[in-house]
């Protein structure tokens, strides 16, 4: 493929709704999965011969399995409320990236094959046969939806385009038109245990390294345990936390929080991944299979609680689906919700005054917070609706002196996707990712100009990866992206443990001549 130089949109002070320009993104399509990416997920390796028939059969199957799909395909009145809500439409001007435009790609086929009006009056109701052109459009545009649900907030019937995209991807997987990025990653989870394909020894090595780093930094022995049978808490976190900046600084923070809480915790090599890309491809069976690893790990490690690290869609699968997919959790401690978010855990400790925090440690930063789409619109934290907005902010404000929110229209339930969610965080979709980030970049740029914000905190591995990649294109620094628990980590004053002075594997006495 020819390397095309990416055009970077110029950030304006306001986000204008662009006029419709059909076809601007018709060329955008991710790499198609190869047979070796399809087979571990029980999907056909390549486009099957009778794919039309198979696709319609699968659509019928899904209509019987998902009320959402049937109701959403029937109910749209084309009112237009969603048309200016999708970050990909705002960034690309392509009308098939308007939520209703995207839904209609599936709806026209639904009408043709499953409704009376579409069978007898196809032209009148915009019904169309499933042709190669339609399939091409599906592949292209259902991989330009990050399933962020922003459109569903503004739809008078709550039509959620994410449900439509998931169904479309599920249909395409079943006829052999899978997406390489998602399906290859799911295969890695089955084979190795996590998205990044980090084997157990590498994880152990990384965690030992973290223990040494934290000890060198603070003189306190903070543990980062893995596969410890009998620990109280199983921590499930995205594998990026073991690997990349600023994710790993978040993981360091979790460990410090658990240290201060005085609880025993453990990671797991088997469940070394919070992400669940089964959701992105709309596959209940794969989502369930990925979730079952967490159940198996919890049983094997005999833990009492489960806590999830900072990951957006993972928290959706954890909060909203885990009880369904891998429950019931009656063998865990009933005094705690299953699962809990690390922000809920930290927030509780702050409320109880159990964390000794020095906010001034973060005085070199002026922060804002990006509500991750899945956390904002598909989950909750704490007992009251909206806790998913308030708890992370409360944590940030407890550890930082300088915090400003971005424009009201771009945060909380109206938050914009980072531009890389929903299985689109791949280099073969870089143009889409750049353009889809525009609404967030505009809001961030404004708060930087107006309030002097220097850093953007997030609680999602995809958001953090996407932002570190796209910020430089917009003239900002990748280091401006921080984990929420990185901020906690900076501010926390650790309680020295009894074994801090004991030499286990250290070869010097640096703890005696500190300062």
């Amino acid at each position, binding site marked *: 493929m020819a390397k095309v130089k990416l055009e970077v949109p110029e950030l304006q002070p306001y986000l204008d709704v662009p006029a419709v320009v059909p076809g601007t993104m018709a060329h955008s399509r991710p790499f198609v999965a190869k047979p070796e990416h399809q087979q571990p997920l029980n999907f056909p390796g390549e486009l099957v011969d009778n794919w039309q028939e198979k696709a319609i059969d699968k659509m019928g199957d899904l209509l019987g399995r998902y009320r959402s799909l049937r109701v959403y395909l029937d109910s749209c009145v084309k009112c237009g409320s969603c048309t200016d809500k999708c970050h990909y439409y705002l960034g690309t001007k392509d009308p098939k990236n308007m939520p209703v435009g995207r839904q209609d790609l599936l709806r026209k086929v639904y009408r043709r094959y499953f409704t009376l009006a579409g069978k007898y009056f196809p032209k009148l109701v915009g019904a169309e046969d499933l042709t190669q052109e339609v399939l091409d459009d599906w592949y292209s545009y259902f991989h330009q939806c990050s399933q962020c649900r922003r459109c569903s907030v503004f739809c008078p019937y709550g039509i959620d385009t994410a449900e439509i995209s998931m169904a479309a991807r599920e249909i395409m997987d079943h006829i052999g038109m899978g997406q390489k990025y998602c399906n290859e990653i799911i295969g890695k989870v089955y084979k190795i245990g996590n998205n990044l394909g980090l084997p157990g020894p590498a994880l152990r090595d990384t965690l030992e390294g973290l223990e040494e780093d934290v000890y060198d930094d603070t003189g306190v022995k903070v543990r980062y345990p893995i596969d410890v049978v009998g620990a109280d808490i199983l921590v499930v976190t995205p594998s990026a936390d073991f690997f990349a900046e600023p994710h790993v600084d978040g993981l360091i923070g979790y460990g410090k929080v658990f240290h201060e809480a005085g609880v025993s915790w453990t990671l797991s090599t088997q469940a070394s991944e919070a992400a669940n890309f089964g959701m992105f491809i709309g596959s209940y069976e794969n989502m369930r299979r990925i979730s079952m690893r967490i159940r198996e790990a919890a049983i094997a490690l005999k833990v009492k609680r489960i806590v999830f690290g900072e990951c957006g869609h993972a928290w959706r699968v954890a909060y909203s689906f885990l009880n369904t997919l891998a429950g019931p959790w009656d063998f865990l401690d009933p005094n705690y919700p299953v699962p809990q978010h690390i922000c809920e855990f930290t927030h509780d400790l702050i409320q109880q005054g159990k964390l000794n925090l020095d906010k001034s440690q973060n005085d070199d930063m002026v922060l804002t917070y990006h509500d991750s789409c899945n956390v904002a619109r598909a989950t*909750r934290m704490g007992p009251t609706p909206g806790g998913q907005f308030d708890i992370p902010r409360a944590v940030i404000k407890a550890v930082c002196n300088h915090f400003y929110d971005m424009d009201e229209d771009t945060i909380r339930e109206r938050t914009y996707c980072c531009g890389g969610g929903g299985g689109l965080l791949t280099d073969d979709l870089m143009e889409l990712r750049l353009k889809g980030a525009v609404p967030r970049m505009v809001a961030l740029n404004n708060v930087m100009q107006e309030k002097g914000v220097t850093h953007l905190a997030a609680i999602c591995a995809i958001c953090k990866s996407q932002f570190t990649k796209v910020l430089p294109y917009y003239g900002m620094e990748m280091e401006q992206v921080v984990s929420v628990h990185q901020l906690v980590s900076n501010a926390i004053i650790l309680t020295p443990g009894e074994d801090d002075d004991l030499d286990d594997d250290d070869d010097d006495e640096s703890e005696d001549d500190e300062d």
Partner: protein
Amino acid sequence: MSFLTVVYASLFYVAALVFVVGVANKIVQYSRSPAPLKIPTTPAPVTQSGVVFRLAREVVLFESLFKGNKWIWIFGWIFHFGLFLVTLRHLRYFLDPVWLPIELIQPFGIYGGMAMVAGLAGLWARRLLVDRVRYVTGPSDHLMLALLIGIGLTGLGMTFLVHVDIVSVKQFFRGLMSFHIQPLPADPLLLLHLLLVAILMIVFPFSKLLHAPGLFFSPSRNQIDNPREKRHIAPWAKRLEQ
């Protein structure tokens, strides 16, 4: 009995049957389709009464549409509220004696008719003037607006321009209800009005008018946000566990 009366009597029996059976069929289909996962758009209510309140706000106030677009909201709400008043006003053709609240609402029903047409005109203007809405508008969307505006204008026409013998109209519909068919006055405006209403009833279960029952079955709006507290599992998903 005139041929015309027989045709319209038959038409309304067919239309009523198609409407009731068609919509009931859809409601049964929706309620039998499982919702395997908890997908309320959050923040969402954590109790059943909270969900009832959320749906009530959607039905009465169009809360989400209000968040989405103020123009669509104002036109859409005026149209629907007008239609609601008009429907109440028309109950006098089916009730004998007419209930007092329906008596009292009669004059408001006329304003309702005007509001309905004004709202529809606004919605139609958006379909023509806003490029994004124009892009997603198909022939059936224009026809639906034409049908509804036609119903509104013919109705208003009978109120303000060409009066019809509404006592006979009432006898016709009361007669249909008790299967004793009474003659229908042969006024062109009335016949057109009734024809359009019958068409509306017939297309209802096969068109986007399904948004009316659909809203109540929308999982993003009607689910309680309690997935950690209560295990939610569909029958077909349960079978995967064996």
